[in-house]
């Protein structure tokens, strides 16, 4: 018990120094106009907050568009990535054909395809969803492959010696072995998908948080760019926090190891 309390105590101690630094920087930023910093270039946080509140409908509209792109793109990329990973590990031909192609093509920065996709698919949401899906696809595929292959051979042999079926080995050993890898892939994939959605919006027309960031498109002041960047950061943080919670739910043994070992 005391061990647990100490643990929470140290967490709190770890929390304060970075929080104080961050708070200090925000305060400094807020009073920066009095040092002669131009509010037309660096609007203070209060101004950014004010536009967020005053024009909340604009932000909600654009935010929801970007969120839809991320959600659809991520779902497509995740499912296809997972299936491709399974095919590479369990399908002999698929492994030989796909793996070298995927490992190589992973080197291509997905975002550079955006202009091409706009030409191919028009100015709607579709090319953006494809960009997000592609960005998610690679880390999910590669981590699924690595995760499934990380299953311990001696443990598999143990179950085989008991007469276990292929299905039992898959369910009881290979899936749980792959889980931390796949979740790490999800984490990476979500980060990429936020980047992918926002940057893809810079190309072509339409709306979204990325679009809102581009000053020349907006009839408002520079604080709109700041507000859109802040919202994007919040989206990324919330998504990653969500993965963290899912991870704790799906892998309770990990916490057990960390706290008591």
């Amino acid at each position: 018990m005391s061990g647990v309390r100490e643990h929470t105590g140290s967490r709190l101690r770890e929390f304060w120094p970075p929080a104080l630094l961050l708070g200090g920087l925000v305060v400094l930023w807020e009073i920066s106009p009095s040092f002669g910093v131009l509010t037309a270039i660096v609007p203070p946080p209060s101004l950014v907050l004010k536009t967020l509140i005053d024009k909340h409908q604009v932000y909600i509209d654009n935010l929801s568009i970007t969120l839809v792109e991320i959600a659809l793109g991520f779902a497509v990329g995740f499912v296809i990535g997972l299936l491709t990973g399974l095919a590479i590990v369990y399908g002999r031909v698929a492994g030989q054909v796909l793996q070298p192609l995927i490992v190589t093509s992973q080197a291509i920065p997905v975002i550079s395809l955006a202009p091409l996709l706009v030409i191919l698919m028009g100015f709607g949401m579709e090319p953006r969803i494809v960009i997000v899906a592609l960005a998610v696809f690679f880390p999910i595929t590669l981590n699924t492959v690595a995760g499934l292959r990380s299953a311990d051979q001696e443990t598999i042999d143990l179950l085989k010696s008991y007469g276990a079926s292929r299905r039992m080995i898959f369910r009881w050993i290979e899936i749980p072995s792959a889980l931390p890898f796949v979740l790490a892939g999800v984490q990476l994939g979500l980060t990429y998908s936020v980047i992918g959605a926002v940057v893809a919006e810079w190309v072509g027309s339409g709306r979204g948080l990325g679009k809102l960031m581009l000053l020349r498109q907006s009839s408002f002041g520079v604080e709109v760019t700041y507000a859109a960047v802040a919202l994007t950061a919040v989206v990324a943080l919330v998504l990653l926090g969500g993965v963290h919670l899912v991870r704790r739910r799906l892998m309770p043994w990990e916490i057990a190891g960390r706290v008591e070992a």
Partner: protein
Amino acid sequence: MTGTSAAATRESAASVRVEAVSKVFPGDVRALDDINLEADAGQFVAVVGPSGCGKSTLFNIVAGLIRPDTGRVLLGGRDITGTTGHCGYMLQRDLLLPWRTVIDNVVIGLDVLGVPRSESYARARELLQRFGLQRFERSYPAVLSGGMRQRCAVIRTILYDAPLFLLDEPFTALDAQTRLLMQEWLLEVWSTLGKTVFYITHDVDEAIFLSDRVFAMSARPGHLLTMVEVELERPRSHEVRFDPHFVGLKAQLVALIRGEAERALAAELT
């Protein structure tokens, strides 16, 4: 045998014969050469040899995970070559699944057999209680010490309740003191189960202490050097190590295996 052990429900002990087993791996690696071993039902038999003598290959053949090129494995007179499901199998690593709690780990063999959890849990609880692990029933293996983890692996092996136990250096990774205690504990457990045991080790001392019969193997390609019967009273305590018969056997086996190890080393160096 007290016969009331939690697990004695599937099959009782059976004799084991390994007949003329040979195995060559791809690349002309000759792992085993004409191996013959025999254990009577309920006997504790050890196989000692220098590392790389193909002991583990031999065990995988007995477990049915690898097919020998020639020869066969008989269990209670029945040919089981290349088939699984006859052996409780235990290695140096405990092989507990980190994502299963202690109780879910020890019943995994019964899960494979399709035994309902209500029944397997009841049997597991009895053994966990007996081996002082009941407090950890719902814990994950990560919180257990090395000795506790290996005890879980033993419970998993007992619960699977195969007629033959295959133990491949199960205590090698433990520290010396824990290891000696685990050996005595294993003998105590074994005496209540009456299973046939094949025990692999490179430690001559451990082999003699535990076994009724010790087979010594040569360096690769593994073949049999000798077989000795250990005529020491049971139950044995650690003092049996000072018995003249024990010391004599040890001197004989150590000399043989040392000679083999030197020969293997010389072969590697030339």
